[in-house]
């Protein structure tokens, strides 16, 4: 069994602020973290490795500094980490990203053995699209199982996999054939904390780095900015909706309540809601 986990290093969005004077993002000093959902994919791969034995390769397309994210994955127990890094990849949208990531999975399969399962996160905290996973699956012609909240069974002999997909109104139990690409939800598991030997091992580990030159058949028209059909035409900070708040601030609870009820009943609400 060979499992590939796709991870992305993202700025910790909780820490990103908007500069109120310039209306621009303050990214300075914002720590980079491994995309939260990707860690759930990794954990699932590692659990499978612990229980049945598997080789786990993590891949990430990003700047050289993303090797920190890969090292974190190695500290948790990944066997191998590959950083796909090249200026030419910069500015990629999901279409161009899924192209490079799929090419990487193909190359990983060639060099380190056929791939049975690819894990992606449900979505990234920065790109936030959830499109790269399906894109990679399509390009590799793998089956795709998105928004997986539970892996019920992986049958390494029959090469089948059964999962629970999370939908708005319920859970779908789906079975398919490997190779398969799964996008992971946080409900899937709780990512482990690396052991101390794991951390020490990772801090000495050097991820494999591939640039455009390492790929035999990369179509340069499909990577980076050039390969990205979408362009960001503008960004802005939304004006908060202007509302005249009526404060019902003082008085006994009963008085407040009757004032509110009177106010609500003076609107169209009772008719529209059939009260």
């Amino acid at each position, binding site marked *: 069994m060979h499992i590939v986990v796709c991870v992305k290093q993202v700025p910790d969005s909780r820490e990103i602020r908007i500069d109120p004077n310039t209306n621009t993002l303050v990214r300075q000093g914002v720590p980079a973290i491994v995309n939260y959902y990707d860690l759930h994919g990794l954990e699932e791969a590692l659990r499978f490795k612990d229980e049945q034995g598997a080789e786990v390769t993590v891949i990430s397309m990003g700047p050289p500094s993303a090797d920190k994210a890969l090292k974190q994955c190695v500290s948790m127990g990944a066997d191998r980490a590959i950083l796909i890094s090249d200026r030419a990849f910069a500015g990629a949208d999901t279409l161009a990203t899924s192209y490079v990531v799929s090419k990487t999975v193909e190359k990983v399969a060639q060099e380190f053995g056929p791939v049975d399962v690819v894990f992606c996160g449900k979505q990234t905290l920065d790109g936030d699209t959830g499109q790269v996973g399906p894109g990679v699956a399509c390009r590799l012609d793998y089956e795709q199982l998105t928004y997986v909240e539970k892996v019920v069974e992986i049958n390494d002999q029959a090469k089948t996999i059964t999962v629970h997909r999370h939908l708005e109104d319920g859970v779908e139990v789906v079975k398919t054939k490997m190779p398969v690409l799964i996008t992971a939800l946080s409900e899937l598991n709780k990512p482990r904390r690396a052991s101390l030997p794991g951390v020490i091992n990772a801090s000495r580990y050097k991820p494999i780095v591939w640039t455009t030159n390492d790929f035999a058949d990369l179509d340069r028209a499909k990577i980076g900015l050039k390969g990205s*059909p979408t362009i960001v035409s503008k960004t802005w900070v939304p004006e908060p909706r202007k509302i005249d708040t009526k404060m019902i601030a003082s008085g006994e609870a009963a008085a407040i309540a009757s004032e509110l009820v009177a106010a609500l009943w003076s609107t169209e*609400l009772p008719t529209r809601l059939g009260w």
Partner: protein
Amino acid sequence: MAEQQNDKRGAGKVQPVPEQDFSDYAGLMVIVEQRAGVAKKVSWQLLGEAKRMADKINAPVYALVMGHNVRHLADEAISRGADKVYLCDSPVLEQYRTRPYSRVSLDVIRTYKPEIVLVGATYTGRDLAGAIATHLPTGLTADCTQLDVDENRVLHASRPAFSEKMLATILCKQYKPQMATARPGVFLELAADSTRKGEVVSVSSPMSEAEVVTEVLDFLELTDRINMEDHEVIVAGGKGLGNAEGFKLLQELADALGGVVGASRAVVDMKWIDHDHQVGQTGSTVRAKLYFAIGISGAVQHVVGMQNCDVIVAINNDPEAPIFKVSHYGIVGDLYNVVPAIIKAVKEKRGLPFAANTANG
């Protein structure tokens, strides 16, 4: 393993496309999502928005309906604004699976060439749109909350970025169709108008069951999983409740108003209530007619999910709480003091009975 099967597998590997001429692409298409013959609300919301944009550039509105025994949805799509509906009614589409659904979609898009394709940003919609866009290939903007089209028929798809702190407008000028998934609960559907006329074009599924390797074994409907977007009155509680028990009180208010309870992420994280109730950036975006925010501070990630409700009432003991800025009515006070009184007043007003064990104050 996989290699030998490739040819058998549905959509097949993505092929490089030669330079294309897109001049004959026209119209806006909405892919209608349904389960068991019932359409998702977001589909009609998108049709409403597509119609608005279509009127602006004088273009037709198409709907693509896929499923098994779903003819009635084609009619409904017309009543909701579609001029023409492509209908693929086939047993292989009984349940949603990526390959057969994307094959039909690709065939229809390639044949009928809509200029803009909109899909609901639901789990299924995102799954499908991601696959279609890759195969076409074209640009896809995810999770939009604002859509517009300019005189050059360029789609301006705007979506939140960086934890909702900003909005970004994204264009796709060089490829067609221009694709976007859009959030449920954001756009307004047109009221169903059965007098509207439209054409239904039947298309067949290029894939047969034998070619599909994915099986849906079961669907576990979660009766307690509620869809916040579907409700008109939401009584949401936050960390100010102090404990999970507090939701009982809110449920009582929700019952009195004919609504459901919602929640901030803080309380979902603490497992006081299930994630399905969460409103906000990582929960649902709601457009309720009445929204109570009780013991919720009003963090931007929460506000983006509820700010479009018609009437918002906030109850918070901190007069500085940011939630008041987005509320129509603000009550400064201890919720355990105020809410029972409101329950009582509402019940009196509506002539509802008081339960014996009700905490009324």
